[in-house]
């Protein structure tokens, strides 16, 4: 089965090609079969590969498969796929959650125009994402990285006949491009120094001789390791929506809801975390940059969570929640708790995909209305959606026993263990805010009286099984996926951490980041985290429970009107960016358009054309059509010729 590893990314690509190029002549059932068959086949092969991989023994725990070497002059990059302990986890998340969301999409997108186009893009996304996680070097990762960016753009702008989605798609693409540029610069620096981009060629070299990359300043006054780490993190900022490049992700909700679940919550946006964890050797040798990563992560976490508590659009709440949770992951990665970061990637993939799909089911029932102010009391009409959504909300809020509790606890534990108490406090407050805004959305959506129009109420219905079955499966995942990484106080060993251990290289002469604490302190932290989460839920219940709608429920908003307006308007970040960046850039662009292009460049060309035309206009008077004039010219020419011959 491992020999078929290369098929995992190729099959969805084939699915995309078949549906995209030939699907026009297929009936809808065949389109659906191709669209679901490709990721299903990938999932089956992936599970087979993972089973064989976990039962076999490989040198350094790495299985590699080289398809061919891409050679151009001195450049030799293998196009190769890699299965190790890290990519195995990502492979499982992407194929499993990806397939479930494909199934869900069949129900959700069933009535939409562009059904075939949608699945063609979604399959293409799967292919690119799998390439990203399976590549054995940074260039293959980058190909996938750009591929998922393209699919993200295409799917955000899926409803291209409306004004906002194409704009949001462009925004996502452009903001991502800023990060991609830094990522490229980092790759160039890496290649210039090592002559290779393959993980297992570079990392052991760095680990064996850390002095070579941490010594003299390389660029920007930073040593090579720090420079590369910084460049890579800027790349991750774009893809994984961290301050200051997070602004595209909330707008990305303009795409269809399953896309938000798959691309903008479960998989693509975690690519930055994956990349940082993958490059852990480099980050361990760049302590300053790592701390920067942690600070940005913590800041993003609390900032996005604060916006999330005031949004009224159910998808916007989840979008800011995603940004916030991604911040958590970077907080962990920056503190050196790489396994905690990836653990949160995994649990988050389950419960956030579940929450998004649940919101999609709600929106489906509400005939496309996303405003929570119009909802309420939906638990009677959508029982399956209600139960699964609450499970997801409990998981993300960090209620003990569910997935989010263990992963979030491990991150907070790492923050406390590393002695960065400010970061720990920020993480803890974020946890409280998370519990609050999630249950705010639960109460507003599912409890109380229905506040929408009569027509909407009449139309309320539970979603078809193709949508509810993935919800149930993901709900199970949102409960149990945390159990693979129980902390040491609850089981003899943290199995997730042990599984990931071979991937975390330790550079020579550098102590591993220690997050060990006494058992009592660990228990205390766990209790504090739990209390904060339950406190958040209680505040949400006090404000929005007890049959209250948005209007009556916003006690805190009435008391803090300025804060509420700030949060509702997302701290006016988009407006600030507009003034500071977008408008100056537009002004410069207009200068280059109107002055440099239209006046200087076009002017020069038009002047040339004008001169040519003028010469022609004057010259045409010589061609009178009168033969005798031509004879005269000829005669004068001959005289000149003789003159020249005689007197030169």
């Amino acid at each position: 089965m491992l020999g078929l590893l290369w098929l995992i990314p190729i099959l969805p690509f084939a699915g995309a090609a078949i549906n995209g190029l030939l699907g026009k002549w297929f009936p809808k059932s065949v389109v659906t079969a191709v669209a679901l068959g490709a990721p299903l086949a990938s999932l089956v092969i992936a599970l087979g590969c993972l089973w064989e991989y976990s039962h076999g023994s490989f040198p350094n725990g790495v299985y590699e498969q080289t398809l061919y070497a891409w050679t151009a002059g001195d450049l030799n990059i293998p196009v190769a796929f890699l299965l190790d302990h890290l990519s195995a986890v990502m492979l499982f998340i992407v194929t499993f959650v990806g397939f479930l969301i494909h199934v869900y999409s069949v129900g959700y997108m069933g009535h939409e125009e562009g059904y075939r186009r949608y699945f063609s893009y979604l399959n293409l996304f799967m292919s690119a994402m799998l390439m990203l996680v399976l590549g054995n070097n940074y260039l293959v990762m980058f190909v996938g990285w750009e591929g998922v960016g393209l699919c993200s753009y295409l799917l955000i702008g899926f409803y291209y006949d409306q004004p906002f989605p194409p704009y949001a798609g462009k925004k996502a693409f452009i903001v991502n491009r800023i990060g991609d540029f830094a990522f490229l610069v980092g790759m160039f620096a890496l290649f210039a120094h090592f002559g290779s981009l393959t993980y297992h060629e570079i990392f052991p070299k760095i680990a064996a001789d850390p002095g070579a990359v941490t010594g003299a300043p390389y660029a920007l006054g930073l040593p090579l390791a720090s420079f590369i780490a910084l460049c890579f993190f800027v790349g991750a900022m774009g893809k994984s929506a961290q301050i200051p490049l997070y602004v595209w992700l909330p707008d990305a909700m303009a795409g269809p809801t399953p896309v938000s679940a798959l691309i903008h919550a479960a998989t693509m946006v975690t690519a930055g975390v994956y990349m940082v964890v993958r490059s852990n050797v480099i980050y361990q040798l760049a302590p300053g940059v790592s701390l920067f990563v942690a600070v940005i992560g913590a800041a993003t976490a609390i900032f996005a969570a604060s916006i999330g508590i005031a949004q009224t659009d159910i998808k916007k709440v989840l979008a800011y929640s995603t940004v916030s949770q991604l911040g958590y992951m970077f907080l962990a990665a920056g503190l050196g708790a790489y396994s905690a970061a990836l653990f949160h990637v995994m649990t988050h993939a389950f419960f956030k995909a579940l929450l998004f799909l649940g919101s999609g089911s709600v929106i489906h029932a509400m005939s496309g209305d996303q405003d929570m102010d119009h909802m309420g009391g939906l638990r009677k009409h959508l029982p399956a959606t209600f139960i699964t959504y609450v499970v997801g909300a409990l998981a993300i809020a960090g209620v003990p026993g569910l997935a989010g509790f263990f992963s979030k606890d491990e991150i907070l534990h790492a923050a406390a263990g590393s002695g960065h108490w400010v970061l720990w406090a920020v993480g803890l407050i974020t946890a409280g805010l998370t519990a609050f805004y999630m249950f705010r959305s639960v109460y507003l959506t599912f409890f109380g009286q229905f506040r929408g129009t009569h027509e909407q109420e009449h139309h309320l219905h539970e979603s078809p099984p193709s949508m509810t079955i993935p919800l149930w499966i993901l709900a199970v995942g949102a409960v149990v996926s945390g159990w693979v990484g129980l902390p040491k106080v609850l089981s003899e060993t943290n199995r997730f951490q042990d599984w990931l251990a071979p991937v975390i290289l330790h550079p020579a002469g550098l102590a591993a980041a220690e997050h060990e604490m006494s058992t009592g302190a660990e228990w205390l932290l766990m209790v504090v985290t739990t209390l904060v989460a339950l406190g958040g839920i209680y505040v949400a219940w006090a404000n929005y429970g007890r049959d209250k709608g948005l209007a009556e429920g916003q006690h805190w908003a009435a008391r803090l009107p300025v804060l509420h307006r700030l949060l509702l308007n997302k701290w006016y970040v988009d407006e600030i960016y507009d003034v500071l960046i977008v408008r100056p850039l537009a002004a410069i662009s207009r200068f280059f358009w109107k002055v440099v292009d239209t006046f200087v460049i076009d002017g020069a060309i038009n002047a040339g054309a004008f001169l040519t035309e003028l010469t022609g206009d004057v010259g045409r008077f010589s061609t009178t059509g009168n033969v005798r004039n031509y004879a005269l010219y000829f005669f004068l020419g001959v005289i000149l010729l003789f003159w020249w011959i005689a007197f030169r």
Partner: protein
Amino acid sequence: MSVPISWYLLLSAVLFAIGAIGALTRRNGISIFLSVELMLNAANLTLVAYARQWGQHTGQIIVFFVMAVAAAEAAVGLALFIAVFRQRRTIDVNRMNLLQG
């Protein structure tokens, strides 16, 4: 007593100038044609004058070629003028201005 070569050349130059002026100024196609013949024969005169001066035959032989070419040219040219006359009932070259740019 032989005639000096300069006389021949002078005569030739005068003939050529008359031919050139005629070719440029006449409007009648036939007249232009005759003027061109005059220029050709002025050239011929120069050739034979030099041939006599240097005692070589090359110049005289070239004159035969020129006469042969002139005959061919006359045949083609006259045919063209007849064709033009049939079309337009005139051989006034001022009326032939279809090449105007």
